[in-house]
């Protein structure tokens, strides 16, 4: 038997004090298999050991919450006995190693989380971060990730309806791939991942187990360095066809009522599913790995338990009803096999051909995992990067040129190149096509629809993680409100660097505090999420990047709203205050190559009033379009409202904002002040819109009128931007395509 020495512990990513704790929990020395179980279950990815104390502070309750964090996904009540079941998940590290498969299997994983709950998945969104498209490596990763997301989602037939993509050099060595899945379930039908009833059989179904992904969970919890190349065989290949069969068969099996519980085998595979189901249900479990369907010969119990082969599920079935379950899987040409039983007590016992090879209290793997209060420290550079001295930037460029440069910035430009590869119409629920606003999907057989948006601004978090966390929540909720949806629940993906560094841990804690503050103020509970740490390459961390996914409810699927102007002669209103805040803006990054300053201020009460107003205006049919002001500021927002209209332009004149000296016009037009929405409305609605805003206490200013074929924007009466809509739209809509075809990298 292998002795457990320092080298073995190190290979398993187990710290000496953690090992001491294992000895204590076990009451003896673990064998190698048992050590393997601890290693994956106590990895950062599975145990949330660094993040847990902070996540506990997030608001997770509310009148609509049916399922908060802790299960495979969260759920909120959407009326009519139905729930929206949703969660976000990251696959950052695998996507760096193998972009196509990494992203594809990320999609597969989050879909399993949703249907495991008994929900039928109806929409996917993704939040992506890459390095600059000027570099071939970033283009290759971008290309692979997008086709992997499409490859999986298109095949399984769940529409990818929205998302966001940001390009910044800081993500060059560590791209982010976060995928959100939304499903619909009857509240009564929600299935949990708990094992109960001693003697109930435990079934395995899905793909056979291979050696792939062994130690994937520990990999996702380690920084990248040269040696990660050796871990490469840890790449998993997705099989969307298998998952489609599993999806249909599992939903069908759930209808029989023969299931006690079900869980997918994602990170940490069989280890995670057996121990979590047992500990959630307060029972033990006995399995014999001999029965586990295997793809390769000679696999050891260690390999079988730790494999992360995709598209596999674990189920506990009511004893006596095995045939019903088997019959459904046979119909779908899947073979459900019994691999063990639920047992009294709390132990996970692993046998190999009848011989006991592992015996661990399951709670030791799950609830007893270490929890760290890691040291935190505000980075020394933090105060410094918040200093923004506009004077040092020299004379400002012409606003016209800056405007066009921003439109062509890949982060701002149309993402058509991306969503053009995603099937977004399958399912016949997609009301707002990607590219127009927050995604909107209707819920068939009900009057309602759901709006969904994923947002996060890493630059803001880098400059001020607390405010950045708040701003992410506010932006996602605001986007949902602009579609007419009332925010009712949120999920979050926290992408950060190495938590063992006090500065990173501080960023994390601050961002979570910000998210919590905003969620409480906006009354949007967090029902789940995911944490991805160690996003660093060679010691260089990404921007702290929380991504928020917010779900909004539209009572009336017909009363939706998108960003585009609808008619000439409509008046254009800016709701909210323009404060001319350039800190952390895309303008500074793109035009001046600088990421500095204080991110936009956020008053949560005002934000809430604004969102409420926008939702009410849309419900009342008072406005024809609504668009949130975000990256690129007011000028880009106005231009985007004109895009996709067939060339309908506008004339606007905005008062100067802020106090930016020679940069006044730029701060006014390109500053990214929060809590602003541009709406347009028919002339006869003018009084109604303004009165509603006044009543809501939201500043409202008519800044222009739609018409003509040009985007003409003046500041204090002086026209500083004047572009033909067609020309501007061309710059914006082809910016990514141009970069992707020029490089000549192929999508093999």
């Amino acid at each position: 038997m292998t002795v457990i020495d320092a080298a073995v512990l190190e290979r398993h990513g187990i710290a000496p004090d953690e090992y001491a704790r294992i000895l204590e929990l076990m009451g003896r020395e673990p064998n190698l298999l048992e050590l393997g179980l601890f290693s994956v279950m106590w990895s950062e990815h599975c145990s949330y050991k660094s993040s847990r104390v902070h996540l506990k502070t997030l608001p997770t309750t509310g009148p609509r919450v049916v399922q908060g964090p802790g299960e495979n996904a969260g759920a909120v009540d959407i009326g009519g006995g139905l729930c929206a079941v949703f969660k976000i998940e990251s696959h950052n590290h695998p996507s760096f190693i193998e972009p196509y498969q990494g992203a594809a299997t990320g999609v597969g994983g989050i879909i399993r989380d949703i249907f495991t709950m008994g929900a039928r998945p109806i929409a996917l969104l993704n939040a992506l971060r890459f390095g600059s498209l000027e570099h071939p490596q970033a283009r290759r990763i971008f290309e692979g990730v997008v086709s992997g997301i499409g490859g999986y989602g298109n095949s399984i037939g769940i529409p990818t309806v929205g998302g966001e993509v940001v390009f910044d050099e800081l993500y060059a060595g560590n791209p982010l791939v976060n995928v959100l899945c939304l499903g619909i379930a009857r509240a009564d039908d929600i299935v949990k991942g708990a094992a109960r009833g001693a003697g109930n059989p435990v079934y395995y179904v899905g793909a056979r187990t291979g050696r792939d992904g062994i130690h994937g969970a520990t990999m996702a919890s380690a920084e990248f360095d040269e040696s990660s190349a050796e871990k490469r065989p840890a790449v998993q290949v997705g099989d969307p066809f298998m998952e489609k069969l599993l999806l249909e068969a599992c939903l069908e099996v759930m209808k029989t009522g023969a299931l006690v519980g079900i869980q997918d085998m994602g990170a940490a595979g069989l280890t995670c599913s057996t121990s979590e189901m047992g500990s959630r249900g307060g029972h033990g479990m006995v399995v014999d790995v001999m029965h586990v369907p295997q793809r390769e010969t000679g696999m050891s119990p260690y390999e079988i338990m730790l494999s992360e082969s995709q598209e596999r599920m674990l189920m506990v079935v009511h004893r006596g009803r095995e045939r019903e379950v088997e019959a459904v899987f046979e119909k779908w040409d899947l073979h459900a096999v019994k691999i063990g039983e639920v047992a009294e007590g709390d132990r996970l016992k692993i046998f190999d051909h009848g011989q006991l090879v592992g015996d661990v209290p399951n709670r030791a793997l799950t609830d007893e995992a270490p929890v760290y209060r890691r040291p935190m420290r505000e980075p020394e550079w933090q105060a410094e990067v918040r200093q923004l001295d506009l004077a040092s930037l020299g004379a400002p460029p012409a606003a016209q040129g800056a405007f066009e440069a921003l439109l062509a910035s890949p982060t701002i430009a149309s993402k058509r190149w991306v969503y053009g590869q995603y099937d977004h119409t399958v399912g016949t629920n997609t009301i707002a096509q990607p590219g127009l606003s927050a995604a909107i999907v209707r819920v068939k057989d009900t009057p309602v629809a759901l709006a969904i948006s994923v947002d996060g601004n890493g630059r803001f978090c880098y400059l001020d993680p607390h405010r950045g966390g708040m701003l992410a929540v506010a932006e996602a909720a605001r986007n949902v409100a602009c579609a007419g949806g009332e925010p009712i629940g949120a999920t979050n993906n926290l992408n950060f660097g190495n938590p063992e560094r006090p500065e990173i841990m501080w960023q994390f804690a601050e961002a979570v505090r910000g998210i919590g503050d905003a969620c409480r103020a906006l009354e949007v509970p967090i029902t789940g999420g995911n944490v991805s740490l160690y996003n660093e390459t060679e010691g260089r961390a990404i921007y702290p990047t929380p991504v928020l996914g917010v779900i909004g409810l539209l009572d009336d699927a017909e009363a939706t709203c998108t960003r585009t102007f609808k008619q000439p002669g409509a008046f254009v209103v800016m709701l909210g205050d323009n404060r001319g805040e350039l800190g952390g803006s895309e303008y500074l990054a793109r035009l001046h190559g600088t990421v500095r300053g204080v991110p936009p201020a956020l008053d949560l009460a005002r934000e809430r009033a604004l969102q409420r107003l926008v939702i009410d205006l849309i419900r009342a049919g008072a406005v024809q379009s609504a668009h949130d002001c975000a990256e690129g500021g007011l000028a880009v927002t106005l231009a985007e409202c004109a895009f996709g209209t067939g060339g309908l332009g506008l004339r606007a004149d905005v008062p100067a904002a802020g106090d930016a000296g020679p940069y006044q016009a730029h701060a006014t037009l390109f500053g990214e002040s929060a809590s602003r929405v541009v709406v347009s409305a028919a002339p006869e609605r003018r009084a109604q819109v303004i009165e509603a805003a006044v009543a809501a206490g939201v500043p409202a200013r008519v800044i222009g009128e739609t018409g003509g074929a040009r985007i003409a924007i003046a500041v204090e009466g002086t026209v500083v931007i004047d572009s033909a809509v067609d020309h501007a739209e061309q710059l914006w809509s082809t910016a990514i395509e141009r970069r992707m075809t020029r490089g000549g990298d192929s999508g093999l």
Partner: protein
Amino acid sequence: MTVAVVVFPGSNSDADAYYAVSHVIGVGAVLVWHKDTELGAADAVILPGGFAHGDYLRTGAIARFSPIMGAVTRFAGRGGPVLGICNGFQVLLEAGLLPGAMVRNRGIKFVSSMVPVRVEQTDTPFSAACTGGQVLSLPIAHGEGNYFADPDVLAEIESNRQVVFRYVDGHGEATPEGNPNGSLNNIAGICNRQRNVVGLMPHPERACESSLGSHDGRVVLASVVQSLAAGAARG
């Protein structure tokens, strides 16, 4: 009247076709499992979109051996109306019920967008309610929709007026700009010689309600209702 929608393992637009037929067009629809060998009392058959068997070998290549395909072939042989949408079209090609084959899109990427499609022929059960030359706005979503046939077969298809739908540009012309996938002659959909079997890559069943961006697909599905009714009237 009953429309049978076949469900292959990996079909993903079966429910969409079912919904469009039963909820939007308002005629009876049944889902038929691919392992069944009979279509029952169906008056028309739809092979839906998706990725039958993952499309792992070639699109539609494995599905054509499904037990139900015997019944579909007999039904088609008796003149029954059969519509293959996207993957269903690919299955019909592989099964030899329609001429030609699909290869990877010219640009090799999956394409998903709303495209203009011109109705070329109105004497099929799935275009009877259209007007000739009518341009429909329909979504496409496929990776292998690049229609190919040998030159002599292509000539025959054209001279027999078997091209039912063609991709066109914004001006209604079948130009290269209007061709999203490289299909020969901008072919989006064809019928067999007997004209009762139709396949097309665009998804009419996804364009039946204006809230989804287009309701132009309705006329395609309504066509079969109209032509069956006309057939019944003729006795």
